[in-house]
Each structure stands twice: as C-alpha cells, then as structure tokens.
C-alpha cells in the first residue's frame, strides 16, 4: 500500500516536473463573446473568471496558479473547432471549458476526441455529446435535451395542453429536444398530440412567416425551445395579435432566466412556464449567497445573470479534477472527472462515471407579475433534479 502511494507521488512529481514548478495551469475557455450569443457568453465568461480569481486567491491548484486563456467561439461550429485546435496546439492549454450552442459543443467535442484533450461542456445540451458521440474526454455539467424534454412533457400533462404546436430551432439543440420531448410525451400525456411542428433557423430574428401558422393551427399550447433572443423577437412580433392571451407557452431554453425577464420587462407575456439554472433572488444552498454576492460585486449589479454559474461551475469541476488527478495528463484528468462530486452554488453535483453527464438540476415554474417589480419573477419555484 505504501509502495503504491509513493508510486503515485513519484508519478505526480514526474508529471509536475515535466512542466517547470510554479508555472500556471492554463484553462482554456470558449464562449460567444460577439454576436447573438454574446448576451449569454459574456456572463458565462464572467463566472468563469470569478471562479479562477477565487481559486487563485486561495493558492491555486497543486500549488500552481490558474491562468485563464479566453477565446470567442463566435457561436459558429467551424470557427470554434479551429479556435479550440489553436488553444491546444499553440497556447498549450491543459483543459478546455465552455461552448454555448449545441452545434459548437459537438464541434468542440470532436476536437477534444482527436487531440485527446479534456473538454467540459458547460452550456451545450444536445444529448448526442453524452450518448452516441460520447468519448473518453468529453464531460457535461449542463442539463441535456432528454432531461429537458422529459420535464416539458410532464408540464404538458400538468397544464392539460391537448393540441400542441411544437417550435424548435433547426440545429442540434432543437432537433434533440424535439426527440427528447416526443419520447416522453406518451408517458406523461398520452391524450395530447402535436398538431404543427415548425423549425425556424438558429439566429432567426423575423418570425412573421411562422406566427400566422401557429395562430391558425388550433393549438392550445406551444412547446418550444426558442431560447433568449429568439423568444424575445417572437413575443414582440406576435403580441399585436393577442397571441399569448389564447396560447400557453411551455418552454425549455431558460427563458425564465432573469436576463430574459429584464430584456422584456412589461412586455413579458402571461402564460409562460419555463426553466433556469439559477435565480439571483432564490437561494436553496448556503453557498449560493456568497457566490451571488461575489458575482454581484464583480458585475456591479445586484440582479446577476444565470449563465455565470455555469461558467463558474466549469472551473470548479476542472480544478477539483486536476487536484484529484494530481496531474495535468488529460487521461488522468478524465479519469478523475468520472464520478467526481463538487459542491456548487445549487448544491453538490456529481458527474456520472458512465455517461459523463452531471445531475445538474433546473428551476421550473410560471413567470408572474409581482407588485413593485417591473420584471417577471418565477413563482412558485420548483427545483427538478435528475437521478442518474
């Protein structure tokens, strides 16, 4: 046993010695910092930076500081793959975190597989990354499209929607969420059926061609994966017709997040039930209070965005895995991540050793008006955490 430990220590020394002592550990981070995805990518990067600052203030990992190497993924899978390759071959990072759109996530995962570099997906949700396209070096701490689709089907049953109009974006996230939802629908709501399916393209801003189709399809509810800016545009274009008076909107894509609530303010429609990873005004774990206060200080606003926590958690997992592996060898980091539990602002999260998916939960609920507030808030809040 003792021999075993000294062997581990020697190996750790060897691995550490290969790179000069005290040289920082380079953490690559890629989020959309320009374009349509920047509204989420920028806060996610802020959370990423916050975690790095906090860890460095406590002395770093394995006695070495963390250095953040940040890049714009442009929400474009082609550009993101090239950028990630450059992070690995030119900037010599030790691990890569991030991605936002599912298409980018798939592209980054492919580079991780080729280059045998650990990639922790913090936001992309397509199930493919942790099912048919799973490989040794990819991990996910976001939710996924199967879990989200399952909850959507449950809500269809809960709110008794009979005829469903299904709106999904025409890329990996939309298609996989559609599949996840359709798989779960017969289980929860065997009497409900989809009467219309439409797939606008990712980044669409003009929904005028779609709105009359949904208005005249005779559905009493919409199941949707139109996230952030897509939802905002839809609301503004559909509102003159009284769209939301007649139709319930059950949606994934975190449109219950505070960012979306604030960008629409009074225009935020009634009848919306959706999800979010984090709510600045709702703490279920003591760690959330300190995290939120630190983030508020960093961003200079009390009302902090939800995406920061995902960037933050990504760094927590990376640091914990390197600490556990006592090495910067990608294979060892990957092994350390399997079954790893980390305490996050929404409680302890564990990465499943087989599927590489963490049991990340989400807050779900209706968005309602509250006196004295010019934005909608989720009430009641329900935390739905998967059992893996």
């Amino acid at each position, binding site marked *: 046993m003792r021999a075993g430990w000294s062997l581990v220590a020697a190996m750790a020394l060897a691995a550490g010695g290969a790179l000069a002592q005290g040289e920082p550990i380079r953490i690559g981070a890629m989020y959309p910092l*320009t374009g349509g995805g920047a509204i989420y990518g920028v806060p996610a990067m802020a959370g990423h930076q916050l975690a790095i600052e906090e860890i460095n203030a406590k002395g770093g990992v394995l006695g070495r500081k963390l250095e953040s190497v940040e890049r*714009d993924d442009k929400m*474009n*899978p*082609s*550009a993101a*793959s*090239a950028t990630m*390759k*450059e992070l690995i*071959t*030119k900037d010599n990072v030790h691990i890569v975190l991030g991605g936002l759109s*599912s*298409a980018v996530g*798939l*592209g980054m995962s*492919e*580079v991780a*597989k*080729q280059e045998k570099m650990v990639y922790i997906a913090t936001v992309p949700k397509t199930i493919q990354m942790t099912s048919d*396209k799973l490989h040794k070096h990819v991990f996910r701490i976001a939710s996924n499209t199967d879990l989200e689709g399952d909850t959507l089907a449950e809500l269809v049953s809960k709110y008794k929607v009979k005829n469903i109009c299904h709106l999904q974006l*025409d*890329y*990996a996230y939309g*298609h996989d969420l559609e599949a996840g939802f359709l798989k779960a629908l017969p289980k929860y709501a065997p009497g409900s059926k989809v009467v219309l399916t439409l797939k606008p*393209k*990712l980044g669409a801003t003009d929904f005028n061609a779609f709105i009359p189709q949904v208005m005249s399809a005779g559905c009493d509810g919409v199941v949707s994966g139109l996230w952030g800016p897509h939802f905002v545009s839809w609301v503004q274009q559909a509102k003159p017709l009284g769209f939301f008076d007649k139709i319930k909107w059950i949606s994934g894509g975190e449109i219950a997040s505070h960012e979306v609530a604030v960008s629409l303010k009074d225009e935020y429609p009634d009848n919306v039930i959706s999800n979010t990873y984090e709510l600045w005004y709702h703490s279920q774990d003591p760690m959330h209070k300190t995290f939120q206060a630190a983030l508020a200080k960093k961003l200079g606003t009390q009302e902090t965005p939800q995406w920061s926590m995902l960037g933050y958690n990504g760094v927590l997992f990376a640091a914990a895995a390197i600490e556990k592996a006592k090495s910067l060898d990608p294979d060892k980091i990957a092994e350390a991540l399997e079954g790893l539990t980390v305490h996050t602002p929404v409680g302890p999260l564990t990465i499943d050793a087989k599927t590489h998916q963490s049991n990340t939960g989400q807050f779900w609920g209706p968005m309602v008006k509250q006196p004295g507030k010019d934005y909608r808030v989720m009430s009641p809040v329900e935390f739905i955490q998967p059992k893996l």
Partner: protein
Amino acid sequence: MSGRVSLAVGIGILTLLALLPLAGSRYAIDLATQVLIYCLFALSLNVLIGYAGNVSFGHAAYFAIGGYACAILLTTYNWTLALALPAAVVLSGVMAAVIGYFCVRLTQIYFAMLTLAFAMLVWGVAFKWREVTGGDDGLTGIKVPTLLGNATSYYYFTLVMVASGVALLWLICHSAFGLMLVAVRENAVRAGFVGVETRRLRWVAFIVAGTFAGLAGALFGMYHRGMYIENAFWTESAQVLIMVLLGGMYSFFGPLIGATVLYLLQVATNQFTQYWPTVLGLILLVILMFLPDGLAGLAARFRRAGGRN
C-alpha cells in the same frame, strides 16, 4: 519567369515544405496544411478567372461538394479513402459540369449572378438536408484513416495531393487548351472566328476549376474532421476570389501567393483584434486602387524596373 527558373523555384519551395515538420512545431504544421489547401482552392478558381476570364461568385459550392461528399462517403458509408477521395473529386467535377452547362450560356455579371445562385442553392441543400449533411451543426466526426491520423502524416498527404494538383493545373493551363482559353478571354469574337468553340471551352474550364476545388474541399474536411455550411456560403466564395485577386489573376502562381499571404495575415490579425474584416477590406481597397495585377503583378513591375536600371 522562364520554365526552368519556375521549376527550380518550385522544387526549392517543395523541399522546404517537405522539411518543415523537422522544425518540430505542431502549430506550424497545422498552419501549413491549411495554407496548402487554400492554395489549391485559389488556383482552381483562377482557371476560370485568369484563363477563361469568367468571374465565378460561387466557387465555394464545389469546395463544399467535394468536402461533404468525401466526408459522407468516409463516415456514413465507411468507404476507404482510396475510393472516397476520387469519388468525391469526380462528383465535384460532375456537379460542376451540370451547373457549368447552364452558367456558361451567360457571361459577365449574369454569369457571376448565376454561379452565386447555384452556390447558394448548394448552401441551402447542405443546410436543410440534415439527415445526410448534418445541417446547421455541420458534419463532424469524419473518419480519417489511422495512417493519416496524426498531424505530420496528414501534412505530407496534403503536400503530395496539393503539389500534384498544382502540377496538373500547370500542365492544363500551359497546354493548347490553356492557350485557347487565354485567346477567348482576350477576344472571344476573334477566337470564335478562328474556329474556337468558346462556350464549350469555357465549360471545360468550369469543370476543371470545380474538380480541383472539390479536391481542396475534401482535403479541408478531412483536416478539420468536419464540414460546415459556412464552407458553402457566398462569403467563402468572396474570400477565395480575394485571394486570387491579391495574388494576381494573370499569373499562374499568383493565386498561391495570394492564398498564402491572405491566410497567414488572417491568422496573425486574429491574434490582436477581432476586426479581421476591416483589415481585409483595407487590403482589398489598396489592391483595387493601386495594385490591379495583384502581388505577382507588383513583383513583375519591380523586376521590370530593376531590369531597366
């Protein structure tokens, strides 16, 4: 440049490129691989512009067809590379023949617009035919033979393919066919009088250009292990057009210089600023206002000036 001098220079450059992996930088190998691919892409377009005098605004279509075809055959159908690559190149040529058949009936702006329209149709099909192409997510996870799995071996593979491609294009452009193309470019009516079938000639040029663009596309897809719809978008066609223009379209080797300079400049610029388009726009303005023959033309002007002294 006399034939013997260009041969010597060519062999010299080829030797340098063959020795590049000895420098031991993985990053340099990756860069060089991409530069080589763009060189072939730009050179293929120049058959159409520099030799036949037809400005195609949709050359990315054939690049994408070659890339997607090779990727799909390798990955979805598990073909070996020895079959998939030739098949992809032939398919690009066939598609160029079909599309070109219609395009060469028009000239000038109408020709440019029609090539653009077809290219955007190819883009639309790549986008919407999700089951086959992967749609907006792109086609990732391309199965490249393990022999070409590491960066250095793939670099050598690319070098051999691109060098053979360049040599073939050189032979084609300097054959009787190439000379007739130039004659058509300079004066279509007169070439017609002496019995040159101008439309058929331009059609063949179109097919040659599309075929070699397809080869470049196939190499690109395998290098990135992915093909994406951006590769067929019109801005990609514009980019390769600028490479040709920067290098100089009336010189055989001009596009190689243009592709190399433009690509490396882009990589360098991206280190400092996200505003690469501004830099590209300024370069383009300078070429248009001051360097209509491109860098190759500039070099020739210097040589002439030197000769006079």
